[in-house]
């Protein structure tokens, strides 16, 4: 991004939008980093009133130590060596003699210790993003610069220990220095003249890249949920229908290791809850025989469903999306054929189609990393590992319910729901579910951790999560409601339910428990129609016999009871 572009973006800030306050902690003159950080955040958060406030010049650690405001969404820390000891910068001349080195190393360790403690004191609802030193150390060491001396390694060791320590905190994210090296030339970062004349350390392109990296951690992309892969010349090398299942390969010996690496990555992605399916033009029995080979690196039980036949792949993708019940924009399709990618893209423009680089070894590392990035998340929740199983169970559920009347079927499901009022507010899964659910979502509103935390600070607010299981197994936590009781009426501000939990009457049970627990005569819902929340709208239309819906939606207990079908769940609350 050019500076001119950033300044123009910043002039468009929505002054009447919800505030998004960020503190910028850096020891140098913050102006360009502030400008670029604001612009990148505005791009990621359209409609928000982004305000980036720099801390004190030359006092990065003090700025972090003073970060106490509960209204702060994030603190962005652009750390440099000079913040840890001024002798490691160019604005002070405190000494680079051998006798100073021991003191510099001690001082750096102490400052990092202070910074570590200060970061850990910041409330978890404030996101902390850290850029570790990006500028080269000055020639302070005795050894020639092409030798990594013991003193330099001790400094690096202190830094790495510090980074590993703060990385354990769930609200802390650290910029990957290797990735930054790829987009910002290490030799072209320091602007010494600007540093000495004005205190601006970074050249403008570097200020942009550091800011972009910090903004990306403050507002991470929503990870994709599913990957659909081709088989021949993608999951393995060779056309299995022509050479047979024993002849296709994915190993070093056969010069097809890149396919093995791809399988290995898919297996890892499945382990973090990514849905995997196959769309291949092949004979099903041949494909299944190959997938059953003992040397396959991707467990066949991680793949569901298999669309293996000779019909167009756009139709396969259509059916897979329906089975997974997720939006096309949450899915990646990988194939070695540009024609197949184009055919799928034409039918499903929101699906991200990626060419498998079967003939381009140089492109493979970037391809694999791109897949990691698209599905990347900071932590893996218990529900992530349940997702595939619950979709399989959903298919079993569909199959079992065919031919049975809904009540007769639901009655023998042995279903139970647990409504957790006591720990749901603090459970990160609650916010995650609110932010990623589209279809059964009361208003589509998204919250940062800080927004969510502020809502929960009101003592009249309640949050409840709903976990479900039946004879087919557990679906985990599938619904979240947030609201408050005021003047006798119950108000619900957030209500989401995973699409995996549809058709089980869980939504009715949620409302019944709310009516009972709060002795409420009515519930007011902060409803807002979105392009994607038709299932929620249909639920309200059915129960209220109202078309169109008018916000806010009110539901009396009497109206609810008159429309509520029989519920068969065993209910427990805490």
């Amino acid at each position, binding site marked *: 991004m050019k*500076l*001119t572009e950033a*300044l*123009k973006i910043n*002039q468009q800030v929505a002054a009447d939008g919800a505030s998004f306050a960020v503190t910028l902690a850096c020891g140098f003159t913050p*102006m360009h980093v502030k400008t670029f950080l604001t612009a990148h955040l505005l791009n990621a958060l359209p409609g928000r009133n982004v305000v980036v406030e720099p801390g004190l010049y030359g006092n990065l650690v003090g700025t972090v130590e003073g970060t106490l405001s509960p209204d702060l969404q994030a603190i962005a820390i652009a750390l440099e060596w000079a913040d840890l000891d001024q002798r490691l910068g160019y604005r002070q001349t405190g000494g680079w003699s051998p006798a100073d080195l021991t003191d510099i190393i001690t001082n750096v360790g102490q400052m990092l210790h202070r910074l570590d403690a200060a970061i850990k004191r910041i409330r978890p609802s404030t996101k902390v993003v850290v850029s570790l030193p990006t500028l080269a150390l000055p020639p302070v060491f005795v050894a020639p610069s092409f030798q990594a001396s013991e003193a330099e390694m001790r400094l690096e060791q202190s830094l790495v220990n510090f980074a590993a320590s703060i990385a354990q905190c769930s609200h802390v994210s650290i910029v990957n220095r290797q990735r930054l090296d790829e987009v910002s030339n290490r030799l072209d970062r320091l602007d010494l*003249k600007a540093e000495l*004349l*004005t205190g601006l350390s970074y050249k*403008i392109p570097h200020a942009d890249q550091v800011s972009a990296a910090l903004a990306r951690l403050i507002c991470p992309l929503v990870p994709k949920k599913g990957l659909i892969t081709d088989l021949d010349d993608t999951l393995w090398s060779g056309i299995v229908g022509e050479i047979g299942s024993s002849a296709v390969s994915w190993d070093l010996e056969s010069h097809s290791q890149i396919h093995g690496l791809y399988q290995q990555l898919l297996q890892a992605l499945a382990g973090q809850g990514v849905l995997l399916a196959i769309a291949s033009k092949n004979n099903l029995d041949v494909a299944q025989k190959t997938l059953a080979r003992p040397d396959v690196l991707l467990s066949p039980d991680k793949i569901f469903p298999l669309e293996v036949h000779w019909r167009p792949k756009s139709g396969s993708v259509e059916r897979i999306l329906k089975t997974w019940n997720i939006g096309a924009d949450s899915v990646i399709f990988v194939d070695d054929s540009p024609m197949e990618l184009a055919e799928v893209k034409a039918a499903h423009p929101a699906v991200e189609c990626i060419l498998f680089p079967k003939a381009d070894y140089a492109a493979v590392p970037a391809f694999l990393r791109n897949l990691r990035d698209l599905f990347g998340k900071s932590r893996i929740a218990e529900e992530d590992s349940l997702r595939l199983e619950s979709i399989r169970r959903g298919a079993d559920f569909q199959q079992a319910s065919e031919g049975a009347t809904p009540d007769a079927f639901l009655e023998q499901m042995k279903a139970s729901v647990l409504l957790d009022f006591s720990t749901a507010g603090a459970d990160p899964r609650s916010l995650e579910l609110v932010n990623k659910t589209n279809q059964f979502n009361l208003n589509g509103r998204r919250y940062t951790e800080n927004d969510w935390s502020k809502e929960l600070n009101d003592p009249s607010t309640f949050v409840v999560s709903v976990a479900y299981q039946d004879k087919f197994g557990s679906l985990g936590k599938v619904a979240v409601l947030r609201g408050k009781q005021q003047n006798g009426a119950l108000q619900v501000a957030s209500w989401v339910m995973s699409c995996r939990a549809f058709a089980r009457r869980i939504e009715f049970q949620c409302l019944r428990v709310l009516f009972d627990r709060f002795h409420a005569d009515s519930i007011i819902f902060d409803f807002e129609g979105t392009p994607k929340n038709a299932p929620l709208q249909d639920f309200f239309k059915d129960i209220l016999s109202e078309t169109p819906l008018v916000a806010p939606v009110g539901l009396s207990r009497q109206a609810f009871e008159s429309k509520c079908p029989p519920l068969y769940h065993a209910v427990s609350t805490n």
Partner: protein
Amino acid sequence: MNDTNQRLIKCFQTVFPDLSEAQIPLAQQSNTKDWDSVAAITLVNVIEEEFGIELDLDKLADLDSFDKVSAYLKAEHAIA
């Protein structure tokens, strides 16, 4: 108005969005409330981007009006 001054007006508009196009040729640090040291550096960097040149930060204090910046570009960088 020549092309250089038109491009320079664009630069000033980016840094001082409250100034009208008519006010910019008359702008001086003394009559432009937002023209502080931060804006001065930003202006220099925006001009560098626009004209693809590197300005001498030592001259920052002297470049305190639209006219002086325009004259500097013409004299030091042969931008007509």
